[in-house]
């Protein structure tokens, strides 16, 4: 079917959107039941949210719908009839399209090339004049447009995300599945995009299934919701009839949650970390930090908010000695800071980088060894700085494992065998077990379940209450609003907005995240 020759969207009454039902879908991976008898129903023109924690089975469910996995039991009904979908191509032919968390556009191709080549009936030789005219006509019917003549790599994240959605519409998909579509967008971009999709569902042009764990997006945009927990559907219904508390309870079940971190009332102390005019390049040699200035005081958490890819990772890498600084000065407690082992120990700087398995551990070494990275060359673990004793190391690891409730079969298992939350706890145990003056944390709760998130946030808050200066880099604005005393917004490698958390709001921060 050629989308270019399709009639323009029918006015008002005609329903183009598809409905979808899953009936008793189950999927078993070896010993793990990833999906257990899940039935959801999405009406034509409905905006349906799929809510759940990481590992609850949301992705498995949509992958069964999309034909990446074949369900062990159950079936999928499309417009009331059973659909046989064996692979993503079948899904596409059936009008089901998906936007993945990671972009699937080809970076070096232009938007136009990406769209045209994705068509099943792409001609062998392109008549670009005709194709461009067709694309222009298509864009004119769309609620938003994206420049199509530049390589996709030159587009901003928000534009790429819009182009992903445009691609599905261009392919005439009537049911869109979005996997956490807003994680790379500013709050403003996210609201705009979801608003546009909501408009399309209201006009019955498409149906939408959106995977998310953000309640705000559910309450603001979705019509109905299904909540998954540990592979089972545990609740759902019309969003208008559910409160956020209801949904949260369904999501986490009866897991006891540690109380919200309590912020001790204290005035900030002296400046501990003073970053002035930092410059650094990214992997491709393009400027990542561009005159970056920031001060962090003792006893305060400064949260760096921003859309990912604006230099946050590079900043953390510079501070942890993983990336050379081109220019600028890092001063810690009135001393020029050189990122080496001696300074970290002397100035009591600790850190929890993002993706700790990659950045803060040696995956194949044991939990005990990984936990000893800060202290293995000091007594009692070492004699004269080079003769290591395994005994004290193991004893200490046992104590830390117990204290921080790291779930591991033994201190001798490889740290790579632990779950994400437990790796994070193990690293946290190592970093926080001593006296901390400066703590550098990046996306500490990414991909963790509710209970771990609360615990890790509480640990960070405790360090702040004790008087440590904390620099928190996070892509999760809620996390920053929850933890930080001051928020700093990072855009294009520099801080363009700083404010105490109490005297700012989401919209203001979002505006600066977009670089205004």
């Amino acid at each position, binding site marked *: 079917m050629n989308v270019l020759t399709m009639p323009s969207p029918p006015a008002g009454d005609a329903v183009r959107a598809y409905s979808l039902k899953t009936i008793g879908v189950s999927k078993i991976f070896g010993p793990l039941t990833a999906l257990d008898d899940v039935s959801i129903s999405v009406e034509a023109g409905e905006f349906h949210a799929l809510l759940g924690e990481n590992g609850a089975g949301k992705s498995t469910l949509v992958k069964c719908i999309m034909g990446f996995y074949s369900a062990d039991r159950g079936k999928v009904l499309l417009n009331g009839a059973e659909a046989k979908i064996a692979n993503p191509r079948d899904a596409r032919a059936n009008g089901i399209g998906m936007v993945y968390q990671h972009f699937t556009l*080809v970076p070096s191709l232009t938007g136009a090339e990406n769209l045209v*080549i994705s068509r099943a009936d*792409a001609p062998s030789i392109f008549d670009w004049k005709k194709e461009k005219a067709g694309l222009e006509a298509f864009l004119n019917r769309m609620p938003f447009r994206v420049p199509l003549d530049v390589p996709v*790599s030159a587009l901003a994240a928000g534009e790429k995300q819009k182009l992903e959605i445009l691609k599905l519409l261009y392919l005439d998909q009537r049911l869109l599945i979005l996997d956490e579509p807003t994680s790379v967008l500013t709050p403003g971009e996210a609201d705009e995009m979801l608003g546009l999709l909501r408009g399309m569902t209201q006009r019955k042009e498409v149906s939408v299934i959106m995977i998310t764990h953000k309640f705000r997006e559910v309450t603001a945009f979705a019509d109905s919701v299904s909540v998954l927990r540990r592979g089972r559907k545990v609740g759902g219904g019309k969003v208008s009839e559910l409160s956020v508390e209801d949904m949260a309870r369904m999501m986490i079940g009866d897991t006891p949650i540690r109380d919200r971190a309590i912020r001790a009332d204290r005035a900030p102390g002296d400046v501990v970390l003073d970053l002035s005019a930092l410059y650094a390049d990214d992997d491709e*040699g393009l400027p990542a930090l561009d005159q970056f200035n920031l001060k962090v005081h003792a006893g305060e958490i400064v949260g760096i908010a921003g859309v990912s890819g604006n230099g946050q990772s590079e900043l953390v890498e510079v501070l942890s000695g993983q990336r050379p600084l081109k220019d600028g000065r890092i001063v810690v407690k009135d001393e020029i800071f050189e990122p080496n082992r001696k300074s970290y120990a002397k100035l009591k700087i600790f850190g929890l980088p993002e993706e700790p398995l990659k950045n803060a551990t040696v995956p194949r070494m044991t939990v005990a060894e990984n936990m000893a990275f800060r202290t293995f060359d000091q007594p009692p673990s070492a004699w004269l700085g080079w003769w290591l004793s395994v005994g004290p190391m193991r004893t200490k690891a046992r104590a830390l494992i117990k204290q921080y409730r790291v779930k591991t079969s033994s201190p001798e298992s490889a740290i790579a065998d632990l779950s994400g939350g437990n790796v994070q706890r193990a690293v946290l145990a190592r970093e926080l077990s001593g006296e901390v003056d400066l703590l550098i944390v990046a996306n500490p709760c990414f991909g963790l379940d509710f209970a771990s998130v609360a615990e890790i946030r509480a640990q960070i808050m405790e360090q702040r209450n004790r008087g440590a200066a904390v620099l928190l880099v996070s892509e999760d604005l809620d996390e920053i609003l929850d933890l930080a005393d001051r928020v700093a917004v990072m855009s294009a490698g520099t801080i363009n907005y700083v404010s105490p958390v109490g005297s700012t709001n989401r919209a203001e921060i979002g505006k600066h995240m977009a670089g205004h």
Partner: protein
Amino acid sequence: MSGDSPFIIVLLAIVGGALRVSTPFMFVALGECLTEKSGRVNLGLEGTLVLGAMCAYAISFHSGSPWLGVLAAGCAGSLLGAIHGYVCKLPRVNDIAIGIAMMLFGTGLAFFFGKAYIQPSAPRLESFSLGAWTGNQQIETALQINPLLLVGVVVAIAMSWAFANTKWGLIVRMTGDSAPAARAMGVSVDMVRFLSTTAGGFLAGVGGAFLSLFYPGSWNQGLSSGQGLMAVALVIFARWDPIRCAFAALLFGATGAIGPALQSVGITQGYYFFNAAPYILTLLVMIASAGSKQAARNVPGELSITK
């Protein structure tokens, strides 16, 4: 006409040299360009070049038709490319290591079967001169064009056009830049790379045919002096653009002609230094492109040397 001024002589010699020796560079570079655009590196093209030279010479000798020799060289090259493409799609295989193995395999095979063809003389490709209308002997000699050079230029233009305007061109670029995207569209990444490597091998083989059938025009074991390897550097220099590959090949050919050209007007000082010019240029290209941001942006995302 002041055809005797040393400057003109050197210039003509360099232009002539560029036209004469750039062809193998061009073919290997175009082949490598196609392979790398699909996201794979084939370092074995040096071996392909030598085997192509041997096959071309042998078939031309037996059949009496040099063009049949060219075709045979291409087929031999495709075979080596196909082996590379097939082995690389097996799990945990490194394309660079396989490339080096294929380079040794190709040259070894050529030397083994080529022993018998060192002595006999095979029919060669005919050339024609673009400078015949001037009536000037020197210009005429300098502007001797071999038909393969023209084929190479046509292939470069065709490839450049195909990358932008055909479905297959876009699929190759897509596979080279983002394998997950290609898979999501139902494209078989392994198949695209296999075919690209095979076609790239064909071009490199044809480049080898030029060596034995036109210039130097005979088969011996020292025929290739690393043109196949330099062509890989040349692709980087040309930033994966077929048209620029053709120009870069001409530039490499011209630098190779500096030494002999200077010698022809009596400047013998630094003869060996000037003969080394293409190698020095290769080195400079590698150093310059290692720090070049532009090159980093044009490189196909799936290439293992950049990962």
